[in-house]
């Protein structure tokens, strides 16, 4: 096919373009023609098709995501909200923190190592693009059944990829999740989050303004990576739309990205950059149209100037390539030389590929011919919006009626003990050390807490001890039983995890992993989850600053469990006051905070012992969560507790076993009045934590809880080298350790 110029497109209105192969619907294509007043060129079609895809345009999710803005709580902390590369919050002392979670699910299934690695690379570039220095990463993961052969292929590759990339970038990995469930067999979820820190004045936005300013592309050369539809346009004839040889898999180069980080931050420090954008999905199409549409002017780009790795690429392919480790900066002409010098210092290839213009058009040239002439807003922001039908599935009632509270419970102490061992050694509750020991959590020398703590915590100011904490949580089983409550439970758990370590929760990012939006049942789950999350954030006063939606996680008719993953960011004035999970000292008193009810729907116990999913998830009381959080934060600040662990999957016994193993100190537990041992140990009621209180603080701590109205129950004492539930059973730490730590290596090694 000869070059399809704008001029040519005007003259040949009847040429049929392969819009359907590029994933556009008929009405979407007609809309493009209407916008342009003519048929699009091949290059324009490439841009619209990829920018109007679900992934880039959020066309199915937009109408629901709006709630995050509409219901946003009043928060002084919010500096930059949804819509930018990542949200930014004020954490005090002149510091701002940016954080975000994203998915790289499908690529990680196809090529686990590279898929996961480039997922980390992408989220980190979002953070750099805000002007921040990345300081940590987290990786919430969900895999198929633990004993499935394909999990053996996917999980080690994913972990090696996340580690390989993050370790090489010098970013401590400070948290994440690993959940196994058969529902993720063909659709593992690989979410990755990153945090960055900057001074308030260094916040940068993705916009191109100031006519005459130069557009500089820097980083890796552009190759044929990740090109889907463009190769159709590039093929000789449109009938010959066989997949070309272009690889859909992108290979990451973390070394190149490390150089990008350093050279970008150096350019920021010298105030050389007007606007900046990372190149992720949709590559140059996305970067140029977003920069131009967020700014005041237009943009002119010479595509011939883009440094290529493969000289045979067509212009459509260059526009759509998803080669990794590339960035685009807008720089004033007088500062271009200095910018290029910095790039050279870091051995980063940098090229001026265009400039900001007066008009409002994005014009792209190839071999001197104009191949794109569009209003960039129509590409970047005016994509289709769908009101997809949604309906509560008819199976929901039956699922909820299948009450887990009615499942047979252990009838003897021996059976109870056996179930405790089964629980703590089950893949989901077992130690994740095999994974987390492949991640560097010491690099940068500011890690205060990392896995297996309740939240990761990083010091950001060496003088004052100011720090930030992050936790990510999600529970697809709860969300399946009730998506609204499930989303709130995820939020509540992440919030609680942050507060348990002594940090004050400030803001939220999320990654919403769901099945096909074309299925009304899935769409209902999605709508409910967003409604739950938005309502919850409003109530807790923690705004959603950004996030990511991953749809079509589904094999045939079977969708994954609806899986909203919530990240909560918190701040702590002095990291010296952080509260760890591990029991510190024998003799300290153990208290259970919150109410324990008979709540087993979706619980770890129901899964491990009965392979059951049914009933209702635990109730959420966000006011209670907030109160619990305040108590935990005050107690940490005033030195009233030496250890704390939030209660979630697996209930109290899981939390106590973890604290005991980590501290190498046992516990003697007494079943409190009014509770049976089984409910005491296994219930998953929300809004609870267990704390270890030095005897000298006992009064003060009880008084504080009493005064504020938080139920507090003394449940035992840190003691010995066993977890001893008085009158029921005792399990030695050695036995527990073997059970808890042996499982994952046994499955994967």
């Amino acid at each position, binding site marked *: 096919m000869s070059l399809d110029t704008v001029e040519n497109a005007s003259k040949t209105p009847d040429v049929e373009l392969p819009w359907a192969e590029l994933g556009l619907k008929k009405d979407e294509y007609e809309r493009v023609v209407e916008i342009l007043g003519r048929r699009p060129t091949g290059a324009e079609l490439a841009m619209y098709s990829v920018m109007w895809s679900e992934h880039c345009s959020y066309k199915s999710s937009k109408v629901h995501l709006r709630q995050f803005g509409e219901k946003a709580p009043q928060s002084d902390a919010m500096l930059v909200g949804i819509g930018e590369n990542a949200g930014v919050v004020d954490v005090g002392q002149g510091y701002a923190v940016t954080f975000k979670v994203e998915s790289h699910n499908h690529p990680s299934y196809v*090529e686990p190592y590279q898929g996961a690695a480039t997922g980390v690379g992408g989220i980190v570039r979002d953070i750099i693009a805000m002007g921040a220095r990345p300081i940590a990463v987290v990786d919430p993961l969900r895999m198929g059944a633990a004993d499935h052969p394909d999990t053996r292929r996917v999980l080690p590759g994913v972990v090696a990829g996340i580690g390989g990339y993050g370790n090489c970038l010098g970013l401590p990995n400070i948290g994440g999740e690993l959940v196994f469930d058969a529902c993720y067999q063909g659709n593992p979820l690989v979410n990755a989050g990153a945090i960055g820190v900057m001074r308030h004045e260094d916040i940068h936005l993705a916009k191109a303004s100031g006519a005459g300013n130069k557009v500089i592309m820097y980083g890796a050369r552009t190759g044929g990576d990740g090109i889907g539809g463009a190769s159709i346009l590039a093929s000789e004839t449109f009938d010959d739309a066989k997949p070309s040889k272009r690889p859909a*898999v*992108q*290979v990451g*180069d973390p070394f190149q990205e490390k150089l990008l980080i350093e050279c970008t931050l150096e350019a920021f420090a010298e105030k050389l950059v007007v606007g900046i954008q990372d190149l992720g999905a949709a590559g140059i199409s996305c970067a140029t149209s977003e920069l131009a549409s967020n700014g005041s002017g237009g943009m002119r780009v010479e595509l011939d100037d883009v440094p290529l790795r493969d000289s045979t690429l067509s212009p459509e392919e260059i526009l759509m390539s998803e080669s*990794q480790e590339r960035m685009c900066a807008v720089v004033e002409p007088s500062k271009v030389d200095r910018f290029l010098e910095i790039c050279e210092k870091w051995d980063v290839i940098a090229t001026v590929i265009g400039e900001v213009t007066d008009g409002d058009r994005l014009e792209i040239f190839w071999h001197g011919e104009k191949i794109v002439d569009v209003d960039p807003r129509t590409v970047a922001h005016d994509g289709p919006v769908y009101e997809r039908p949604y309906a509560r599935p008819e199976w929901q009632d039956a699922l909820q009626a299948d009450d887990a509270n009615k499942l047979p419970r252990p009838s003897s102490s021996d059976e109870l003990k056996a179930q405790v061992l089964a629980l703590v050694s089950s893949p989901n509750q077992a130690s994740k050390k095999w994974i987390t020991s492949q991640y560097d959590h010491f690099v940068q020398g500011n890690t205060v807490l990392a896995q297996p703590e309740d939240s990761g915590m990083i010091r950001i100011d060496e003088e004052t001890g100011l720090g930030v904490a992050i936790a990510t949580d999600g529970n697809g089983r709860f969300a399946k039983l009730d998506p609204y409550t499930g989303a709130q439970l995820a939020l509540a758990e992440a919030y609680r995890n942050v507060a348990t370590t002594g940090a004050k929760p400030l803001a939220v990012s999320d990654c919403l992993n769901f099945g096909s939006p074309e299925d009304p049942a899935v769409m209902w789950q999605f709508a409910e989850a967003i409604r739950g999350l938005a309502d919850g954030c409003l109530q807790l006063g923690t705004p959603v600053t950004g996030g990511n939606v991953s749809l079509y996680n589904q094999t045939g008719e079977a969708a994954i469990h609806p899986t909203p993953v919530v990240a909560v960011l918190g701040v702590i004035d002095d990291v010296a006051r952080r509260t760890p999970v591990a029991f510190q000292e024998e003799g300290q008193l153990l208290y259970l905070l919150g109410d324990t009810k008979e709540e087993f729907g979706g619980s770890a116990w129901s899964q491990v012992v009965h392979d059951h999913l049914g009933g209702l998830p635990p109730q959420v009381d966000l006011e209670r969560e907030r109160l619990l959080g305040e108590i935990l934060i005050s107690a940490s600040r005033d030195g009233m507790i030496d250890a704390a662990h939030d209660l979630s999957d697996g209930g109290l016994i899981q939390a106590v076993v973890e604290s005991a193993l980590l501290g190498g100190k046992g516990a003697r537990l007494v079943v409190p009045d009014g509770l049976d041992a089984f409910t005491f140990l296994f219930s998953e009621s929300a809004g609870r934590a267990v704390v270890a209180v030095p005897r000298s603080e006992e009064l003060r701590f009880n008084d504080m809880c009493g005064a504020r109205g938080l139920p507090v129950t003394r449940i035992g004492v840190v003691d010995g080298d066993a977890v001893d539930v008085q009158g029921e059973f005792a399990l030695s730490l050695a036995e527990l350790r073997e059970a808890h730590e042996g499982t994952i290596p046994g499955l994967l090694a």
Partner: protein
Amino acid sequence: MARVVVDVMLKPEILDPQGQAVQRALPRLGFDGISDVRQGKRFELEVDGPVDDAALARIHELAETFLANTVIENFTVKVEEAVEPAVGAEK
């Protein structure tokens, strides 16, 4: 006993950061005139029985399913000659 060699290289269109890093270092080391470097893996398999067509077919399958990741890599299978006719000497 015979030796079969499986060479696994990234497909030409796939980024090879290792090869690139090596190539970029060459001028600094005083080596010019090498326009491209690709780095791959070499597997030397010691095969017990005779390396007949059946054995080669099996090794081919092994390479395809295990030694190479054909999403991003190509491979070749060669029977090593008894005497190595290498131009460079083995060190």
